[in-house]
């Protein structure tokens, strides 16, 4: 067993865990944050994407022990004080989700992109979300949603940062 401290969606968690526990298992099974999904076993689908210290990563390919000391943001942590993040609003407004299974991972990847590139082209967006598979939407409206969230985030007067800054 290993003792770790992680901050998940702003709440510090101290836990004793098996080293073999994956971060996604910690989130889903120990913390019951089931908005982060598992869609494959080979790091392809991106349904498990979360932010670790501000970067989008596949939580199925990270040991929970590796996240010791990190700040983690999951889909449950996107809305602040009940107000949806612009990417959440845009996904709904643009009908960028159907079954909703891939949606949390896609929104998280999109946030990573938009935090670093305020005005991405459609090609940038499509390239950035290559690691998130969606079988329902054909991506058309997802691209529109990310584009529209980018516009909103650029115009935002308050910073829309999610999670912590990347530690350098």
């Amino acid at each position: 067993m290993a003792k770790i401290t992680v901050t998940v969606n702003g709440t510090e968690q101290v836990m004793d865990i098996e080293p073999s526990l994956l971060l996604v298992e910690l989130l889903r099974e120990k913390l019951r944050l089931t908005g982060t999904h598992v869609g494959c076993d080979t790091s392809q689908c991106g349904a498990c994407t979360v932010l670790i210290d501000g970067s989008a990563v596949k939580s199925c390919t990270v040991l929970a022990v590796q996240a010791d000391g990190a700040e983690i943001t999951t889909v449950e942590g996107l809305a602040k004080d009940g107000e949806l993040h612009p990417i959440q609003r845009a996904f709904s407004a643009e009908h960028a989700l159907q079954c909703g299974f891939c949606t949390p991972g896609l929104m998280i990847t999109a946030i990573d992109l938009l935090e670093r590139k305020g005005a991405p082209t459609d090609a940038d967006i499509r390239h950035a979300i290559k690691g998130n598979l969606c079988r329902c939407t054909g991506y058309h409206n997802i691209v529109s949603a990310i584009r529209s969230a980018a516009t909103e985030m650029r115009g935002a007067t308050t910073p829309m940062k999610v999670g912590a800054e990347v530690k350098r």
Partner: protein
Amino acid sequence: MTTATPSTYIGARTPRKEDPRLIRGSGVFTDDVTLPGMVYVSLVRSPHAHARIRRIDAAAARKEPGVVTVVTGKDAEATGVLPVFITVPGMNGSKHMPLASDRARYAGDAIAAVVADTHKAAKRAADMVTIDYEPLPVVVDATKALEPGAPILHEELGTNLVFTYPVKGGDIDKAFRDAEATVKLHIVNQRLIPNAMEPRSVVAKFEAGELTVWSSTQIPHFVQLILSVNLGLSQNKVRVIAPEVGGGFGSKLQVYAEELLIAHLAKTLGRPVKWTEDRREAYLATIHGRDLVEDVEVAAKRDGTILGVRIRTVANVGAYLQAFAPGIPTILHAFIIPGAYRIPAFDCEVRGAYTNTTPVDAYRGAGRPEATFAIERAMDRLADEIGMDPAELRRKNFVPPDAFPFTTISGITYDSGDYGPALDRALAMADYKGFEKRRAEAKARGKHRGIGLSSYVEICGLAPSKANSALGVGWGGYESARIRVHPTGAVQVFTGTSPHGQGHETSWAQIAADAIGVSPDDIEVRHGDTFESPGMGVGTFGSRSLAVGGIAVHNAAQKIREKVIQIGAHLLEASPADVVVEGGKVFVKGVPEKAKAFGEISMAAYLASNLPDGMEPGLEATTYYDPPNFTFPFGTHVAEVEVDPETGTIEIIRYSACDDCGRQINPMIVEGQLHGGITQGIGQALYETAVYDANGQLLSGSMMEYHVPTAADVPPFALDHTVTLTKTNPLGVKGIGEAGTIASTPAVVNAVIDALSPLGIKHIDMPLTAEKVWQAIRKAGEARR
């Protein structure tokens, strides 16, 4: 073309009611359900595609820490057999048990279930189960499976032939005798893996004599029915819940082995049980789609008039027949091949074959993409043969608008259609006329550019129950709805459909809102729980939900509306004919200031002290709608591609589509269905294929190998529509869930072949991968040397 009549909510781009929970991550999928005392199942699956099971030794597994029990086929016979809902004439059915006990028939066939306190312990112990197999000869190819001497999968049948299914009309011999031009094509409509993003999952608990099962399914009522019958439980004691379901595409249109098994284990162990497949398991043990080999021949005149179509098909059903498998290559394929065209003679024969592969059943489109691919590739080949423009050839053979209702040569009656305008619009969107200039410009850059189209007619709205019965479908094709208006005016709609991304909570609310005159915001749509919904729901598949389930909602809402009018008229002391229901109010025409609020009417219905004479109290309605006919959406899609001859890489430059699904309830949702459908069709055309080796091992067994399209693989889509209302139902709606998949595959392949036709290339088997395209170009170059 007709126009939809105006309505308040139908036709609006209403944001989805489903979204708030899904974008917050609070939607509950089956694997998110965790119950106290729950145990977990890991299945031991056969590594062999065909083997006799000599002995199963689970002693070591049973000793592993945390293991509760290990169950084999012999222990689990109480689950009964897996159901098959369709019987075609002369069918050789297979006995399919959730756990194979004597023989494994495909790599992935489940042999034993390990139950443990944790998922990890179950998985670890599953590796400790030792099975002594005697490998048997394997056959994976359907055509080879039908040859003499092929290994037989089901010895009691003595053959691998599942069925021979003919559909004929007109004089096919005369058609070919009179032909001035004929074309022949050999088509491999390759096997696909559905890849719904949510893996399948089942949770079951048995408490106080009541079985509750959460399952990632498209058909909770069928699961409930079969669990009740097979496990010997009274149906009222079996509750099946389809919570959030993460995509289905036909792959969750089953009563699966795991559903029976997990329910059985919960019942016998008395503890809640969970099983969730991993993706590798999904590739092996969740159904696959397509896998047909077709030989198509077309007889025509030199002016392009089609005289007849002959087609011989071999369908690979896999190792066992799954629930709807017998109906896919037959009913949903053979009958629809004539498509949008007037074809005077038709001769189709489909043979089904068992092979040592994962069972094949419905995958988005299910039979109709295969049919459309066959006819639309044949149209292009014919156009090439007689030197006619492919669009003109299609136009020439279209069923003309004045011919409806039109009975096709395969015997199906299209109630309505107007194919020319959709073709014209799609061609205009695609700038079809300006294409040759773009081809020349690409050539100057060293690229081959091509344009391709496909015109389709889809058969949706499955299905009139009598037609079902005549075709061998062992259940009605109706759908149910129940609307409950509470005393305060709160409205709940319960539907028998079981959405998994289609947005029924939104669309059904729009339909009900228009009928009962309240806002969709004030209507809650509930689904996927057999304890709430009407007695039977059929489910969501075959683009049927709107044209059948949506109409059931409409009809139930009309009943509510009638009663609201009656009560309103009574309270307002007016004639029902003069009463208007609008904006949450009921009033006499022209006197809106003296309105009764909807809530006052509903309260009156339950106070029951002041109702019209003889009226029952309450405000509730249940309907079952059985459609009088199928519906027939149609459209034309145009793809434009560029091929890099050096690497064989294909880029879709432009994609234009004009579809006609009748009235659109929520255009935003319609477009979303098309985008996703088109992408899956592109996947088949260019990227996806399930590959087995000769030993029956699935080589494309993970997302590392099987190419599910990514955002970078598909273009944006330009969509337009025409609106031709069907007369079959009161809303004029037809269905749109599968149209994109049906239309896009041939459009894209036709575009690639068009790009390469200057090189003399006539055909490349799907998927048109880089290497296949490069090899074809190279061979064409050698041939011309």
